C-alpha cells in the first residue's frame, strides 16, 4: 500500500504505472463501474430509439435521410482513433512520454474530425431536409441518442487535451498515468457505443 507521490525514475518505472498505487487502482476500478452505469444510460437511449424509430410523423424517414458514405467515413475515423489511443497506452507502459503525447494528439485530432463530420451531418439534416428536434418522435430520438454520443466525444476531446497539458507540466508519473489510462478506457467505450449506433441507427435505418 503506497501513498507516495514521488516521481518514478527511469529504471524503477512500473510496468503498469496506472495500477502502481492504491489510488490508481481505485480509479481504474471505479471507472469500470462508471462505464457499467454509462452502458445502462446508452441502453436506455437505444431502447427509446428502437421504440420510436418508425414514428416519423410525416417527416423524413431514416431511409430517406441517411447517407452511408459520410457515416462510414466517420465510423472509420473514430475506430482508428481507438487504435491510436491503444498506441498511446503502449507508449505509456514503455515509459516514453513524448510518444505518448504524440499518439494522444493524433487521437484528439481524429476525434475532432469525427465531430466535424457529425456537426456537418446534423446541419445538413436541419437545413435541407427540414429534420429538426421537433419534427417527429423519430427525430427527437435520433438527435438525442446520436447527440449524446457526440457530446461524449466532445467531452473526451476536452478531457484528453487537458491531460496532454498536464503531462507536459508534470510528466508521466504514477499520479498522471491512471488519468491517461481511464481516459483511454472512456475513449474505447464511446467507440463501442458508436459501433452500436452505426448498426442500430444507420444500417437498420437503411434496410428496415
Amino acid at each position, binding site marked *: 500500500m503506497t501513498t507516495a507521490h514521488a516521481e518514478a525514475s527511469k529504471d524503477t518505472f512500473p510496468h503498469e504505472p496506472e495500477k502502481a498505487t492504491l489510488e490508481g*487502482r481505485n480509479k481504474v476500478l471505479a471507472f469500470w463501474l462508471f462505464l457499467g452505469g454509462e452502458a445502462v444510460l446508452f441502453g436506455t437511449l437505444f431502447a427509446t430509439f428502437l421504440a420510436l424509430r418508425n414514428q416519423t410523423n410525416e417527416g423524413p424517414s431514416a431511409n430517406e435521410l441517411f447517407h452511408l458514405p459520410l457515416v462510414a467515413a466517420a465510423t472509420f475515423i473514430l475506430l482508428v482513433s481507438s487504435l491510436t489511443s491503444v498506441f498511446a497506452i503502449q507508449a505509456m507502459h514503455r515509459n516514453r512520454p513524448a510518444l505518448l503525447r504524440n499518439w494522444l494528439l493524433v487521437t484528439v485530432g481524429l476525434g475532432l474530425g469525427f465531430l466535424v463530420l457529425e456537426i456537418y451531418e446534423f446541419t445538413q439534416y436541419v437545413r435541407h431536409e427540414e429534420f429538426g428536434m421537433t419534427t417527429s418522435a423519430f427525430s427527437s430520438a435520433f438527435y438525442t441518442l446520436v447527440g449524446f454520443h457526440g457530446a461524449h466525444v466532445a467531452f473526451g476531446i476536452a478531457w484528453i487535451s487537458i491531460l496532454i497539458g498536464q503531462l507536459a507540466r508534470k510528466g508521466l508519473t504514477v499520479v498522471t498515468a491512471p488519468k491517461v489510462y481511464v481516459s483511454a478506457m472512456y475513449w474505447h467505450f464511446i467507440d463501442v457505443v458508436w459501433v452500436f449506433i452505426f448498426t442500430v441507427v444507420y444500417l437498420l435505418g437503411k434496410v428496415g
Partner: protein
Amino acid sequence: MDWLTTVDHKKIAILYLWAGGLFFGIGGIEALLIRWQLIKPMNNFLDAQTFNELITMHGTTMIFLGVMPVIFALMNAVIPLQIGARDVAFPFLNALGFWTFLFGGILLNLSWVMGGAPDAGWTAYTPLSTSTYSTTHGVDFYTIGLQIAGLGTLIGGINFLATIITMRAPGMTYMRMPMFAWTTFITSAIILFAFPAITVGLVLLTFDRILGANFFEVGAGGSPVLWQHIFWIFGHPEVYILILPAFGIISEVIPTFSRKRLFGYSSMVFATILIAFLGFMVWAHHMFTTGLGPVANALFSVSTMLIAVPTGIKIFNWLFTMWGGQVRFTTPNLFAVGFIPTFTMGGVTGVMLASAPADFQFHDTYFVVAHFHYVIVGGLVLGLFAGLHYWWPKMFGRMLSEKLGKWTFWTFIIGFHLTFFVQHFLGLMGMQRRVFTYLPNQQFDFLNLVSTIGAGLMGVGMIIFLVNILLTSRKPADASNDPWEDGRTLEWTIPSPPPEYNFKQTPLIRGIDAFWKEKVAGNKGMTPAEPVGSIHMPSATILPFTMSIGIFIAGLGFMFSRDEFGNAFMSFLFNNYIVTAIGLIITFGSMLMRSLYDDHGWHIEPEELEGSERT
C-alpha cells in the same frame, strides 16, 4: 467554512443527516397538510392544484431528498469503520455527491416560491407532465432538480462500491463483512444500474418540455407508455435501494441486542443478492393496467411474487436470531423488532398487488398507498430510526435518551398503524388516491378521520425525537467506545466519535463479527495488522461545493431559457443561455482546477497519534 470544504466521511455523514432531516421535515409537513385536507369529506382547506403539488412534492421529497440522504448519512458514518478503512476510496467525490444532492434538493424546493411546484404526481406520468397539461415550471424543477440530485446519488454509489471492494482491512473477506456493509454494497450496485435509466428519462422529459421534442407527444408519434417503462425500470429497483439498507441495519441491531450472531449469515447475503437481481425483473408490475397483455402481466406477476422467497428467508433469520438470545429491548432494538411484523404486512399486500387480476381492482386506490407506506415507512423509516438510535453515540459521542426514545417509538408506531392500516380498507372500498376530496356518506368519513389522527400522532413522535436530539446535544460527549456493551463489529473498537483517521492501526480481522470474536477470546481490542506509522489524509477543498453551485446555476438558466421577462436585461441573460453558460463555466472551471492542481494531501505523524486516544 470547515463544513463547506470537508472531505471527511464522518463529517459528510453529519451533513447528509442534517440536510436529509431538513427535507424529511418538509416532506412530513406536506404529508400532514394532505391528511388535514382529507380529514373530512368535501373539505376546502386546500384547492385541487395545491393538493396536486403537495402530493407530488411529498412523494418526491421523501424518497429522493428525505430517506435516501439519511441512508447515505448512515452509510458514510459507518461503512468505512465497519470494514476497517481510514476513509472512502474517493473522499473528494464523496463531498461532491453530497453537494450535488443538496443543490438539486434546493432547486426542487425553490419551485414553491418560483411559480408553482411540480403537480403531475411523484411518478411524473406523461402526458400529465408534458407542457400541454402542466403549464407552470413545476415539472421543470422536478426534472432538473432530480437530475442534479441523482448525480450525487450515482457518485455516492460508485464510491461505496470501490471502497468496499478495495479498502477492506486485512482478513476481512467478503463472507466476513458485516451485513450492513453487504447491503450497502448491493444497494450501491443497484444505484449504479438503475439511476442512469432515470437520468435518461428525465433528460427526455426535459427535452420534451424545453426543446419541444416529441418523446411523449402522442400526436407527433411519441409514446406515454415509454415514460412508464423508463420510470419503473428505475423506480422498482429504487424500492430495493431504499429497503436493503434497512435490512442491513436490522441485521446489525438484532444480533447486538440478542447477544447472538446473526442466524443464517450466508443465506442473508445470498437473499440480498437475489432480491437485488429480481428487483430489476419486475418493473412492469406497476403497469398491469396499461394494456401490456396477459403474457407480460403473467410473467411480471410471477417474477414479483418470487421476491417473497428471499425476503421470507430474511424475516425468519431475524426471528431465529432472537430465538433463545438474551434480548434487550433498547430503543434501537424496539424499532428493529417493530420493523419485522410491520414490514411483513407490507410484503404480504405486495404479493396481493402482484396478482395481476387483483391489481386491476386495487390499482390507484388507497390500498396501494397503504401498501407502499407499510414498506417505506413501516420498513425503511423504522429501520432508519433503529440505525440512528444505534449509531448516534458513535457519530456524536452522546447517547440519546432511552426514555424519550421509547416514547418516540410508541407514538410513532401506533400513529403509523392508525394512519395506514385503515387505508387498506379505504382502498378496498374504492377510495381513489391522488384525488383532493371525496363525497360524504360513502363510508370513507370515519376511517379518514382515524387516518388523519394517526398522522398527527406520527408527527408527535417525530417531535419527541427532535427534542431528544436537542436535549442530548446539551449533554457532555462521554460515550465510551462500545456504549451498548455488546458491539460486535469494528466501529465499536474505536473512540466515539472516531478520530479523523478512524484507526490508529488497521485491525486484523479473524472472523465474522470481528470485535465479538476478540471479546469471546478474552482480548480487549483488535490485533493490529500494521505498526503505528504516519497516516495519509486527503486535503479539504471547496471545489465540490463550487462545482455543485455551477450545476445549480446552469439548471436554473436552462429552465428559464424560453421565458419572457419584463426586464430586457434578464431576457438577454436567460434567452441566450448566458446564465446556463456561466453555470457550466463555474463547474468545468472547477473541474479544470481539480485536474491541474494535484491534491497531495497531508500526513498525521505517529507522535500526534499518541495521547489523542481516548477510551
